[in-house]
């Protein structure tokens, strides 16, 4: 499937911000199920953005504005060819070994409730079946509701709340998987939904778990499926915290207004 991504983020400030700097993990890397044809990350401020590959293997751009400004826009545009491998990730650059992804983080700490939840699926025989059971269980326990949580919500809090967004589903899945001794990690990226999508749905988050004999497999608990050709991976990390697609710091107090527009379309069917 040939997918075209257009993603524009505009930051507007009520009063001038003196300096702003951002780390952007918004670029996919090619692997067996995805080939990048063209991709660019740009800003409306003067120059091309410098980039490097981070410790997790993410292509990372750095965007800095050092003079007073009231608006800045970042444009991501690209085209990729994807195939459906039923979630199995092969041929990707893997700088860190699976064992690393058993590490506990504050956002994915398994409290008693998460441990109990994980306990419900240990009876499943194969590791893959367990993870599929977990996929459904996470979605059952946490309803999809925008506004119930924020980026600092932990897996435990989301479970207690019983509601959250894709980020919370991913965290909960990761926390339970790690508790069961299965390496799991957080993925950020784009999702083609097939319909004229609402913006927030095209920027997506899910999880990957390491299954013996298969390697890394993508699990999207929010949609109760293993990842397909509709998914474009752009950032990998231990949790939202280490894999945030955009992380920024700015100097100068100001009310920030964010205008985001994300479109993921099939090539040849652009509107």
């Amino acid at each position, binding site marked *: 499937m040939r997918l075209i991504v257009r993603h524009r983020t505009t930051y507007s400030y009520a009063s001038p911000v003196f300096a702003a700097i951002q780390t952007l993990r918004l670029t996919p890397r090619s692997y067996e199920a995805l080939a990048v044809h063209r991709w660019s990350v740009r800003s409306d401020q003067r120059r091309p953005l410098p980039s490097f590959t981070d410790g997790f293997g993410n292509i990372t751009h750095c965007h800095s504005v*050092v003079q007073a400004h009231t608006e800045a826009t970042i444009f991501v545009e690209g085209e990729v060819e994807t195939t459906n491998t039923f979630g199995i990730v092969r041929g990707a650059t893997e700088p860190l070994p699976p064992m690393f992804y058993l590490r506990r983080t504050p956002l994915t700490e398994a409290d008693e409730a998460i441990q109990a939840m994980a306990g419900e699926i240990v009876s499943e025989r194969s590791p893959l079946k367990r993870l599929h059971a977990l996929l459904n269980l996470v979605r059952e326990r946490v309803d999809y509701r925008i506004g119930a949580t924020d980026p600092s919500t932990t897996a435990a809090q989301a479970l207690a709340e019983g509601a959250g967004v894709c980020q919370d589903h991913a965290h909960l899945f990761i926390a339970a998987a790690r508790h069961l001794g299965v390496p799991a990690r957080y993925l950020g990226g784009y999702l083609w939904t097939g319909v004229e999508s609402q913006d927030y749905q095209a920027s997506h988050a899910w999880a990957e778990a390491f299954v013996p004999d298969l390697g890394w497999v993508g699990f999207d608990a929010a949609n109760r499926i293993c990842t397909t050709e509709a998914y474009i991976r752009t950032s990998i990390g231990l949790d939202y915290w280490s894999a945030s697609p955009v992380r920024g710091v700015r100097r100068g107090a100001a009310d920030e207004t964010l205008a985001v527009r994300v479109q993921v379309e099939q090539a040849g069917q652009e509107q």
Partner: protein
Amino acid sequence: MHYEIIRRWLDETPTTALSVKRREAEFLFRRTGVTFSVYAEGGDRERLIPFDIIPRVLDFAEWQQLSRGLKQRVRAINEFIRDVYHSRQILRAGHIPPELVLHNEAFCAEMQGFDPPQGVYVHIAGIDIVRTGPGGFVVLEDNCRTPSGVSYMLENREAMMRLFPDLFARHRIAPVSHYPEDLLDTLKSVAPPNCKSDPVVALLTPGSFNSAYYEHSFLADEMGVELVEGPDLFVDDNVVFTRTTKGPKRVDVIYRRIDDGYLDPLTFRPDSAIGTPGLFNAYRAGNLTLANGVGTGIADDKSIYPYVPRMIRFYLGEEPILENVQTWCCWDGDDLAYVLDRLPELVVKEARGSGGYGMLIGPQATKTELADFAARLRARPGDYIAQPTLALSTCPTLVDAGIAPRHVDLRPFVLSGGKEIRIVPGGLTRVALREGSLVVNSSQGGGTKDTWVLEG
């Protein structure tokens, strides 16, 4: 015997005269502001680290041996850090349990795959050494993050030379005062690949409220480099600049005395007010050298320490010149059983943590303390290591009652640059001032001494 000269000197100098000299030394330190702050204390008052005016003496031959051992150890540690952030051969070869590294908080995934300039990670190492017998030195601890204390080494010598010029005229004592120059050379030798001119060096301090601030300002001053705080710097296009009265000025090498977590709120702790956003990106982009490198804590973690001799064999193919203190790793079942059995004889330390707070000194512990620690060991064996109580060497020290033996350790400072490893002869001698005490930390009543390496 090299201590002969000290004995003779002490014999011919009345104790009262020594006490007078000690007060003079204190006055000198106070006036120049050689102080450290203790966090727990309120207000702006500062404390002096007690200075003992009787020097600690090492003869040249033993220093040479020690120095070779230190260089060997630091080379292996540097290789280890490089390996740990690349292909992890040492884990594959089964020399260290992989989870000890990969699940360690000090393992910094952000460093994976990155090659720091000239391949140097630990530019400044402080290796804590104790003497356990004649000619026998063992390593107590490696400090690979931001080791401090070198200013005391330099100021102690300065004070001794002012107080006892005749002693220095009579004996050949290896000088130490060139340390700041060596440090600057070291820092310049690891300039980042994108630096095309004479590298600009700066020293990054958390600020004047930090307990080691005096040392930061002292070193910056002695090296003639700018002493900067996080907000003095900014990053644009992955290049670091200082804010000056004449506009932005590029910086190439930063000797940072801020912990990893606080360096850069864009990459690490977002609540850090003492860091500079974007610093780490500039580092990874090849526009900046950080000394020490980021993630070096993986090498000095107490849970990794027991494996340093194996690192030396694995990476260098050499036998360790300096031994470790015998260490039992409580995450190993057999070791744990042994430790629980012999608890009253052992020193138990937290595998993470510093400052000597979370430790048990078996022979000095009460029954309740022992029981309490045994419970902790059973609950979280992975968090502890145990060592025998050492027969630490002592050194004559001036205390209220006169001259008496007190336990000492030694922290030499090892500088690793692009081409060579250098060590200023001696180091910082710390002394436990309380009778019988083995704790030399300045935060717990330890003092310092001048350290002499006698040449010939």
